[in-house]
């Protein structure tokens, strides 16, 4: 008869690799982990149901997780915390699926409540979502966490995202590590879009549209809801090749949309104290200059006519303006105006076919142009074959947020913004 004071798990029984000698070290519940390369299992060894669940969770990692998940993370450009949370979800749900009792969860309810309170107080969207994903399948812990989060604007969305992640993971049934990577890519694309936005200097009152974490998350969730949790949600479509067309810019355009600062000897707040002994111009003065950039999507879904493009050109003096469209596998970005000069009217039209295909390469081009950056697009982006995917759409959204690109759905809204931008510049 076995009579142990410490309750040791049996990693040898679940390990696929023969002849590996496991060592077990005791720890607290939060510190449990597996070191497959060292064959070391660090788990709590007491008799509580939570510790039992923790031990089973780690045995699940030994049985089902690869020994080097960091390699998969690096190969798929995934953040390690995203991959880990998703893998934890897979282990929890798989344990429940094969009949292991996961109802107790691996933490006491008080700890979970305190943890949830702390996360809600910090309003950390990323952490909230990742923890919600990681506790999915943890029985009582999951329920407690959901109770605490529900009713909170971001908490409700975190619950919905975790539910969708679970459906994506179990889409084909009995998920493997590949499904973890697939789900983690989807989650990573979503989380990338929730990163704090780069502040863009827009007319007063317009920043709020792209600023709030809650608003941003809601707009991202609209995208993922549209794509659902089927196979299409996580299948990324490669982007087409982009060719840049630069026709001669023969027309000179008057006016400025950009702004810059120059040293001045008059002002209120000295911003250049180092110039006191040089020329005394310690103040800054705003002046109008060439600047700003506008990118226009000329795909079929936008239904643009040359007069719409001319309208945009007319309201973005001195700015860099380009339009793009694509064929099945590639596309063309045409620069219509730059450095105060515009192309002939005959070039003011869609540069290629009626597909998108090169949205992301075109946005990459836009990120290298001067601020403020405006993208006139209805948000329907496509890759090769004019196919859509949640990952492609989220990738563009995230790039816009990171690079301070403001998107407007149609020409009317874009022109309205451009007018305000021109007016606000001194």
């Amino acid at each position, binding site marked *: 008869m076995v009579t142990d004071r410490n309750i040791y798990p*049996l990693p040898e*029984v679940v390990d696929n690799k023969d002849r590996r000698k496991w060592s077990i070290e005791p720890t607290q519940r939060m510190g449990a982990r597996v070191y497959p390369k060292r064959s070391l299992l660090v788990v709590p060894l007491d008799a509580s149901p939570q510790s039992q669940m923790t031990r089973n969770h780690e*045995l699940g990692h030994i049985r089902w997780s690869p020994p080097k998940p960091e390699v998969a993370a690096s190969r798929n450009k995934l953040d390690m915390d995203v991959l880990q949370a998703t893998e934890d979800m897979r282990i929890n749900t798989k344990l429940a699926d094969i009949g*292991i009792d996961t109802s107790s969860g691996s933490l006491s309810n008080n700890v979970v409540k305190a943890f949830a309170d702390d996360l809600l107080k910090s309003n950390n969207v990323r952490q909230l979502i990742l923890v919600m994903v990681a506790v999915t399948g943890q029985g009582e812990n999951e329920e407690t966490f959901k109770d605490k989060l529900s009713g909170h604007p971001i908490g409700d969305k975190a619950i919905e995202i975790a539910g969708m992640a679970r459906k994506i993971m179990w889409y084909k049934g009995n998920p493997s590590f590949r499904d973890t990577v697939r789900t983690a890519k989807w989650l990573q694309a979503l989380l990338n879009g929730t990163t704090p936005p780069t502040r863009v200097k827009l007319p007063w009152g317009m920043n709020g549209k792209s600023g709030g974490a809650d608003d941003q998350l809601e707009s991202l969730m609209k995208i993922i809801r549209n794509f659902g949790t089927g196979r299409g949600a996580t299948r990324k479509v490669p982007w087409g090749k982009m060719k840049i067309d630069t026709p001669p810019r023969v027309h000179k355009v008057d006016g400025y949309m950009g702004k810059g600062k120059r040293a001045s000897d008059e002002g209120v707040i000295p911003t250049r104290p180092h110039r006191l002994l040089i020329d005394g111009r310690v103040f800054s003065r705003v002046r109008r200059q060439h600047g700003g950039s506008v990118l226009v999507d000329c795909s079929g879904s936008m239904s643009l006519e040359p007069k719409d493009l001319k309208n945009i050109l007319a309201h973005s003096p001195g700015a860099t303006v380009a339009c793009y469209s694509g064929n099945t596998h590639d596309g063309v970005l045409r620069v219509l105006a730059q450095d105060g000069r515009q192309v002939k009217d005959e070039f003011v039209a869609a540069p290629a076919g009626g597909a998108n295909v090169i949205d992301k390469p075109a946005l990459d081009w836009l990120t290298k142009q001067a601020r403020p950056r405006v993208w006139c697009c209805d948000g329907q982006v496509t890759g090769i074959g004019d196919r859509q995917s949640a990952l492609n759409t989220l990738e563009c959204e995230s790039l816009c947020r990171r690079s301070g690109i403001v998107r407007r759905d149609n020409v009317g809204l874009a022109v309205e913004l451009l007018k305000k931008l021109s007016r606000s510049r001194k």
Partner: protein
Amino acid sequence: MWHDGPAIAAWRIGGRLVVNEIQRGGADCHALLLAITDDPEIAQIDLPSGEKVKPAAGFAVVATMNGDPKEVLDPALQDRFPVTINIDKVHPEAIAQLPPDVQQAAEKTALIDNEERRISVRAWYAFVHLRQKLMKSYSEQEAQQLAATAVFNTRAQDALDALVIGASQGG
């Protein structure tokens, strides 16, 4: 009156003496084994009856033990056993007698170095037999739970869960 024990009997007929669990023998036993396993040319024991006995040709000694001989046995006694065979696998026939669902577990847990963690093949046998008996009166799941609690004590649930996880498809 003197009666030959297994060692002297083996000496007389040139037979093979098997010493089981040699590490459990005390100092007296090990001292006697030193004399028994001495070189055949010089080995000799004076019996209380006055008789002098020498090992007959063909005499050999085989000893078994658990653990590392270098850590447990006296170096002089170790030296008497020129050949050491390390058996790091449970006999396949012993494993084959167990039902398929516990074979792999028994094979792996019986070889764990840490005594506190090791579960012997005997314990698995006991579990299997008890489970089989209890299944006459209880459902399979109840019988399994009761048998595990009786045999594995506080580790019952861990052992059962490990069996379920180990039986699942990997990857």
